[in-house]
């Protein structure tokens, strides 16, 4: 069991390393240093060079990379060029909207998808099933930022039920907080819900075929108990995988959706920082996001192994 976990953890290191290196390289090899962006077009070469030296940008790339990674491992991600604060602080300040958004989106997705998936599996081949499948296909196909735009149009502009953009922290009241986040959350959740519905449905179909379900029914168990206590429990694992992987999708979707709804979260932060060539922030946020994502997947993998011991025991190639 422990070896299983250890092996999964170790396999992540090369991936993380590649991510570090790639981010670093892209930003640093770009023409136009932060110094020239910061000083504007009027700056002379000497000024740019001086600022570059001050920021430590004239050191060899390897040295810069090592010092940055070293700092990162101890929690120091450097200081933002533009925001005038440590990167870590910038991340902390921007994380709650994104986190709130992700949580609401996941909850919506789960609440919609699992019952629908179970229903579709139970009534396989019927009209209900086909409608649900068609709906999920729609959810998968519509890009979330377009969905976000349409939701904005309908609920924000035409109906005026919900605010068009901005953000209020949870401390201002739950309804207010929710009002600002619900539209983007739905936009993000749609794709997730669609995928989870399909996964749940196919997983449940497989499980429902199995003999012990027939036995449970023969025993006279109520159908709902059969479905939820026996079938869903066993069919849940693939669903868990999809949920975990969906987190990555949420993070990506959040970038554009946050911009559409003007939510001051990590997505907006990173987009603005990229435009401003604010290397430390970009590196920090990308690193942070990737680590979170990788950890979540690790957790899902481990949970998978825990919930079904056969997986951890089976030799993995």
């Amino acid at each position, binding site marked *: 069991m422990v070896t299983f976990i250890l092996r999964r953890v170790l396999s992540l290191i*090369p*991936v993380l390393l*590649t*991510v570090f*290196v*790639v*981010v670093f390289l*892209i*930003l640093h090899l770009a023409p136009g240093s932060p110094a020239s962006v910061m000083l504007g077009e009027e700056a002379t070469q000497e000024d740019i060079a001086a600022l570059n030296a001050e920021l430590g940008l004239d050191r060899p790339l390897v040295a810069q990379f090592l010092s940055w990674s070293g700092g990162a491992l101890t929690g120091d991600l450097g200081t933002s060029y533009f925001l005038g604060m440590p990167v870590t602080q910038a991340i902390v300040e921007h994380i709650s909207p994104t986190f709130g958004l992700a949580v609401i989106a996941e909850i919506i997705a789960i609440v919609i998808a699992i019952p629908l998936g179970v229903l579709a599996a139970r009534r396989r081949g019927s009209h209900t099933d086909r409608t649900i499948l068609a709906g999920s296909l729609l959810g*998968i*196909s*519509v*890009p979330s*930022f*377009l969905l976000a*735009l349409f939701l904005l*149009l309908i609920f924000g*502009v*035409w109906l005026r039920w919900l605010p*068009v953009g901005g953000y209020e922290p949870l401390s201002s009241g739950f309804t207010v907080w929710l009002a600002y986040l619900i539209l983007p959350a739905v936009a*993000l959740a749609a794709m997730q819900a*669609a*995928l989870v519905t*399909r*996964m749940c449905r*196919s997983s449940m179909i*497989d499980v*429902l*075929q*199995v*003999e*012990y379900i027939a036995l449970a029914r023969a025993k006279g168990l109520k159908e709902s108990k059969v479905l939820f206590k026996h079938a869903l429990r066993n069919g849940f694992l*693939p669903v868990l*995988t*999809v949920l*975990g*992987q969906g987190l*990555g*999708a*949420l*993070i*990506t979707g959040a*970038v*554009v959706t946050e*911009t*559409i709804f003007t939510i001051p979260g990590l997505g907006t932060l*990173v987009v603005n920082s*990229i*435009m401003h*060539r604010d290397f430390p922030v*970009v590196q920090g946020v*990308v690193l942070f*996001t*990737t680590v979170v*994502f*990788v950890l979540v*997947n690790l957790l899902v993998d481990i949970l998978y192994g825990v919930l*079904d011991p*056969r*997986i951890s025991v089976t030799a993995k190639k």
Partner: protein
Amino acid sequence: MDTTRHSPLDEQQLEERGRALARRQRERNLRRILDNPMLMIGAVVMVVLIVVAVVGPWLSPYTQFQLQIEDKLTGPSARHWLGTDDFGRDLATRLFHGLRTSLAIGLAVTVLSALAGTAIGLVSAYFRRVDGVLMRVMDGLMSFPSILLAICLMAAFGAKIENVIIALTIVFIPHMARVVRSAAVSVNEEMFIDAVQSQGASSLRIILRHVLPNIVSPIVVQATFIFADAIITEASLSFLGAGVPPPGASLGSILQDGKALIFASWWIVVFAGLITILCVFGLNFLGDGLRDHFDPRSGKRRTVAGLAKGQILRVVGVGGRSGSTPPDAGSQAETPAAQANAEAEIHTDVKGRAGHGE
């Protein structure tokens, strides 16, 4: 070689039978294509869109940049079927041009990333020594959400349309490379490869002449999904302002304008959005249809239950391009069925319970 002498009549009969057989085979294939609803819908939609993109700007009485300030911000009307924007430009014309740009960029990105990705995948599958390194790099690139990677690259290169193509190509190469590698690896394990190798064929020849022709179908399917993905990613890029610079317009930049004007004019967002969705739908249907066409088993597999022990359970899910895990952080929400259909095949023993195999 058959040395029996055939009379001329027999030869003729044989030829005719051969031709009839070939014709029936072609008809069967055509029937299969026509009976494939996803494929047909996708193909029709895409053909229509391409025709509109090519012919539209030509047919329109307006030009893309024609300003008619007195008409600005009018909704759909007889003069302007889809309305105008805040400069008085005809929206329909702008959309035709935008569609052209988006499709052209998408096509370029697809072709380039397919070429490069296929090359990398083939090399990786054939030369095991570089496989590890190459795939780690690909995994690393795929760990990024594609939007972020694209924005980073655009910030690095500068805002020009060529750079959009380059950046997006880089983003999508790993997707193709993974699929190609996966497919090529299974071909490489076939016996005929050993046979050809023992005959002394060079590696290049083997790869190009023997491996490549056998993996054409997954390449085509994946390319279709990459096209859809590219359109969405380019639209997102331009929407954020990091894509096609003005005065050029792509669907994304029109959407950006629309968003800014959303209180004054709903039609910009709605029509630009609808066209984009249509594009994406068309391509996804096409990809699904093509995949079903090339591998009919996958259609049936979806409703099969009770897998035999160790049998492949096809997971329709996000990310996990075929091949190995680690799951990539690059699972994009922006990708519609492309993701769902880049099926990850997970071998599990979990379903080993059922007695009946399939």
